[in-house]
């Protein structure tokens, strides 16, 4: 039975901070993956000038 007159326990700030940190680390990892996907050099375009006499 809930005692309405009893104050709620204080939030566990450390636990909340750890959860926020874990979330941010997950976002950072995802962003790094996206960056690799988008910005890694995947191919090299090739052109060759018209050959000339040595």
């Amino acid at each position, binding site marked *: 039975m809930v005692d309405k007159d009893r104050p709620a326990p204080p939030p566990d700030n450390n636990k909340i901070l750890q959860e926020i940190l874990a979330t941010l680390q997950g976002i950072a990892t995802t962003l790094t993956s996206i960056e*690799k*996907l*988008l*910005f*890694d*050099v*995947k*191919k*090299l*375009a*090739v*052109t*060759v*000038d*018209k*050959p*000339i*006499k*040595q």
Partner: protein
Amino acid sequence: MADPKPITKLGTSVTVPMLDDQKALMHVAPLDAEGNPSSFPTGSAPPVYTVDNGASEIVFVTLDPTVDPTGLSCEVIGVKELGGASSGVATVTATFTNADGTTAVGTAVFNMTVDPAELDVTSLDVAVDTPVSQ
């Protein structure tokens, strides 16, 4: 003489006919996953150029990557008389290694033939016997 004009369109592999006494500058440009122009990350090593002469042990072309320290160009130089062969194929590959170890490549295939002018008679040796009485 006018500047040499590119003879091939943009692509990851091109084929170029070339004579044994010619040379050509090969250029590469980085492309991202979408095929759009990209750039090499700052501080990354430049692309490495290698040549494959196929099954033949004859060297058809040599490379001079020192013409461009950025690695975006490499001189491809024909080997005179193709080591005795009348024709041959040399594949030049540029390879760039990303920070995560993945690689990007571009190739140029050089169809090599001996310059027909080299086979032309360009002079005649002359010898005359000692004159004798008629």
